[in-house]
């Protein structure tokens, strides 16, 4: 098919249909397939209660994956997620112990600690030009060290504040879990950021080619700095939610969120090389990962089998729509 022919065919398609990214469409199709498979196995799988419960669990990953997506759009990666999540949870829980003022400031304090760590990541990547994989790894190690020293190596005894428990476990409106509403707000803000602001355009531009973005007049270094700060803040916010969900923070509470957050973003069609991807894809990726984990645990699959299937599914899905271009072709 020649290029001219292709244009006419795509011109005839409705505008909406043309705008659909095949990767995102595949991800949503996979969700439907997973739901049907789950329904075959257990009839209560499609009940509203179960689905809402899944979305509530997905919210924690969703908030963290939003931060990860911002960084991946730049063509960078944030490996400091595990301990920034833990910092968010532990610091907010610690603040709760300091009387009513501490309790009121618990959530902002947790967020602030995450933003500060993200800021350090951003300075390293944007101004010191250290590869993000390394600097975020180092910040992760420092955050771990700080938390180990702070807690003495044990799970902290401070419990989460009432507000933290409320946003993570309560449900106010029509039985919709608060955590889901929180994710909705974060997601709406992210969509606004990506599609309606200069900052969002700059993220995509830098992900494609930082040099070109710089020459186009973006202050690329400041954009990268703030992107990492936002990512740190969202990771910490995920930690605050998780601490509220479990009523307390724990050592290594963030460890199970690093790989799923990267996988969710990438399965949602965002290029790991940066510059390409949409938030609707990330939503699909987050739900997909959560459903997969849930189905495997409903089937009482042992942990070993879960890991194997989890890895195999990521590879298979990436082979379906995440393949790179052939070199030289």
């Amino acid at each position, binding site marked *: 098919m020649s290029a001219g022919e292709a244009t006419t065919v795509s011109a005839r398609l409705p505008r909406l249909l043309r705008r659909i990214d095949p990767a995102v469409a595949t991800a949503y199709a996979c969700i439907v397939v997973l739901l049907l498979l789950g329904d075959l196995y257990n009839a209560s799988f499609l009940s509203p209660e179960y689905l809402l419960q899944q979305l509530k669990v997905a919210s924690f990953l969703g908030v963290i994956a939003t931060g990860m997506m911002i960084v991946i759009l730049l063509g960078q990666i944030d490996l400091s997620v595990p301990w920034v999540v833990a910092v968010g949870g532990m610091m907010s829980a610690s603040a709760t112990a300091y009387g009513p003022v501490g309790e009121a400031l618990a959530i902002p304090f947790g967020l602030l600690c995450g933003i500060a760590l993200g800021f350090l990541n951003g300075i390293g990547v944007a101004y010191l030009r250290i590869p993000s994989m390394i600097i975020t790894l180092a910040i992760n190690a420092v955050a771990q060290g700080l938390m180990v020293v702070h807690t003495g190596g044990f799970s902290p005894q401070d419990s989460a504040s009432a507000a933290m428990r409320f946003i993570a476990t309560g449900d106010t409106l029509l039985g919709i879990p608060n955590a889901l509403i929180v994710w909705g707000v974060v997601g709406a803000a992210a969509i606004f950021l990506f599609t309606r602001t200069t900052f969002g355009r700059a993220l995509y531009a830098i992900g494609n080619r930082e040099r070109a973005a710089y020459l186009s007049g973006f202050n690329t270094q400041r954009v990268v700095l703030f992107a990492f700060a936002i990512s740190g803040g969202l990771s910490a916010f995920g930690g605050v939610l998780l601490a509220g969900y479990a009523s307390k923070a724990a050592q290594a509470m963030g460890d199970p969120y690093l*790989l799923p957050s990267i996988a969710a973003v990438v399965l949602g069609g965002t290029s790991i090389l940066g510059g390409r991807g949409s938030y609707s894809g990330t939503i699909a990726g987050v739900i997909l990962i959560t459903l997969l984990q849930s189905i495997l645990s409903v089937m009482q699959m042992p942990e070993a089998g879960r890991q194997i299937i989890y890895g195999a599914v990521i590879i298979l899905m990436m082979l379906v729509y995440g393949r790179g271009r052939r070199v030289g072709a």
Partner: protein
Amino acid sequence: MSDWRYRFSEHKGTLLAVAIFVLMFTIYLVYHPAITSNGFTAKAVTNVVNTAANKGVLLALVAVAQTMVVITSGIDLSVGMIFILCNCLASAIVVGSAWQTALGIAGVLATGLLCGAINGLVVIFGRLQPIVTTIATGAIYFGIALALRPNPDVAADFNGDIGDAMMGKLPLGIPVSIVALLVIVVVIWIPFRRSAIGRTAYAVGSSEVAAFMSGLRIRRAKFVAYTLSGLLSGMGGLYLTFTTASGEASLANGNTYTLYSIAAVVLGGVSLFGGSGSAIGAIFGALAFRAIGDLLFDFNIEPLWQSLFQGIVLLVSVCIGAAQLVRVRNRLDLFG
């Protein structure tokens, strides 16, 4: 030697890693309690060196594995998981008589090789990004390890003789583990580095398109790099089994080795963008990283501070690498 300047700049990263290692390890030895209390006797020193070597070789092997892939400008986040898988497998099959043991070792190494080959095939023919691929295959390898050893277990009839032999000392107090590492470098790294395949791996890391245009066989080079990486991680896992005589499918341990391997590679002067650096540098990077981590033990500081200390050392060392920014004349050069 008119080309010394060029050669020096090519090996600068490696030499720096050696210097850091020598400095850190000397401090470690001088202040080690077993040496300060017994005086500076040969026996005390060789004992301390041997213990440090047995510990350091594990990370060194995984770091060399990481180097192989990093040179092609990829990254292997499954090295720690292959390491754990081979540890669990070795604790199950390196048993019994000499022949059985040899067969078991061959099986473990073949498994490591196979894991690396799978990574390579998916990256090359699946055209997936190495980082995503190895995250996913890492999960699979860890799952298999967990299936082999659901609970951490001491190998029932593990061949302890070979474990003791590999951890012991040769005459003059030379640790067997260091000799083994040397043999691996001579048998695997140097032939790789000097062959057309190795050269191609470096070329791919510098510019894949240019390597393709020059008619180099980039697929073969990448495949060999990933496969050797798997083999070396497998050797690390085997060595872990020699030292502990047990197998444990520990997720935390696997992740730690993966992350430390990246740290060691960076300390060793291997560029994460590919195309430069050497396994020798990565080995010294790994040994230096271990020595730094163990320094706290010397000064009797609570182990609680170890992870913070290690993190700060890592942070400072990567920030020192940023010093070359001072020499950037054109602002555009910042953006690569």
